[in-house]
């Protein structure tokens, strides 16, 4: 019981942080074609 509780206590914040990071990285996968200046232009 103590073992499960100890692991849960560290996995909950780690899982929350991981979820937030995944959310943050989502725009990378949703990126629409760029309408910016073409690559290579100075």
């Amino acid at each position: 019981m103590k073992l499960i509780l100890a692991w849960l206590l560290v996995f909950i914040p780690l899982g929350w942080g991981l979820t937030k990071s995944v959310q943050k990285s989502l725009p990378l996968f949703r990126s629409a074609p760029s309408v910016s200046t073409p690559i290579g232009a100075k």
Partner: protein
Amino acid sequence: MPPLGYPLAVPHFLDRAATVAPSDFNRWLVPPAAIAAHMCIGQVYGFSVFNKPLAAEIFGKPVTANLATEISHVQWAYSLALIMLGLSAAVFGKWVERSGPRKTIVASWLCFCGGLLLTALGVQLHSLPLVLFGYGFVGGIGLGLGYIAPVSTLVKWFPDRPGMATGMAIMGFGGGALIGSPLAQTLMDFFKVGEDTGAIKTLVAMAGLYSFFMLLGAVLIRVPADGWHPQGWTPKPKSGGMISVHHVSVDNAWKTPQFWLLWIVLCMNVSAGIGVLGRASDMFQDMFLGTSTDPAQIKMNAAIGAGFAGLLSIFNMGGRFIWSSISDKTGRKAVYCIYFILGAALYALLPWAQETQSKVMFVALAAVIISMYGGGFATIPAYLKDMFGTYQVGAIHGRLITAWSMAAVIGPLLINKLYANRVAAGIPKAEAYNGTLYLMCALLGIGLIANLLVRPVAAKYHVKA
């Protein structure tokens, strides 16, 4: 009143002797204790979220103002914290070995959470020096103490799988970066009122939250009794003598060529990764998204760049556990050869991914590279244990961490300088990174040579029984 000489300030339960585990203790309770401490101090990597609010509050300007100069002053707190991390780990390593992990984690908690409170006070008093002293100096000492204490303890608990064990703790440090930044942002959004950014209350609240987890780690942690080893496991030298059954003291360790070769190994691995990690967002935008004057497009590009940086953070964290666990099977020298050879090959392919405008390929290559950067951090304590034994591995690890501090300075410096020179020479931004990427290959090449030169430590350095 206790007689003179009695340890007035340090209660008995903090002593190393009080943390020796009973025979029926489950060693799997130690990794969560180590992770709890590391995921708190890993907050340092998320410090940048405070840059703007602290700059605004300390210098009494609105958060919407141009704060570039003020932010550059505030960022010194982060740099100083990383420098102090390396210095305190090196200076206090022997004390950490003597005092045991519980006292060290408590000392780390006092410094780290005390540093957060001093930072809050500094912001309240509009005092930049107090912020630098609180977060950078005091907090930085907390980082160094908290970083090495649980790592050496884990190595002693898991002599059969030291890579996996230290990988878990150091993964916690990487995880701390994933938690620290969104936690601070969520709290600041909650406490924000009008012109008040909520930074002061956030720092106090974070000190409280981190206190809970660090003290949880201090309460849970135990050291194994002398001579303890896992049931059914006996130490045996293998891999051509690359896992020593002898011990080397910290004072002797740094007289050995092995120490300095491993110092170069860590320094090169970190330098190569940190430069890219620090510029990940800008690099992706420059290489794939081009420049725009449309505010909506600029915002979208920034979100995509941040998304790339976020993805790399996940691989940085995961790589710490996965690669260091793999090292238990392959041996430490072999896994570092993989980091250096595969890393250099992947770095060399990044310009090709940019030329072909293959975002998927670029992201995949960078993710593997950064996973090996994390892996390099996590595998080094086990490598030290293989070379120098467990006797003072924490103190030796502490001294080796100075390589990280050095890399934190030279990595970004090299990349930024070379990039700026190439842009100034008229090379398009998208291609200006190529030179820096090839430079990373060269750094990894130096690391590979150092790693290949590592041999078992000569018997004259061994601690006599």
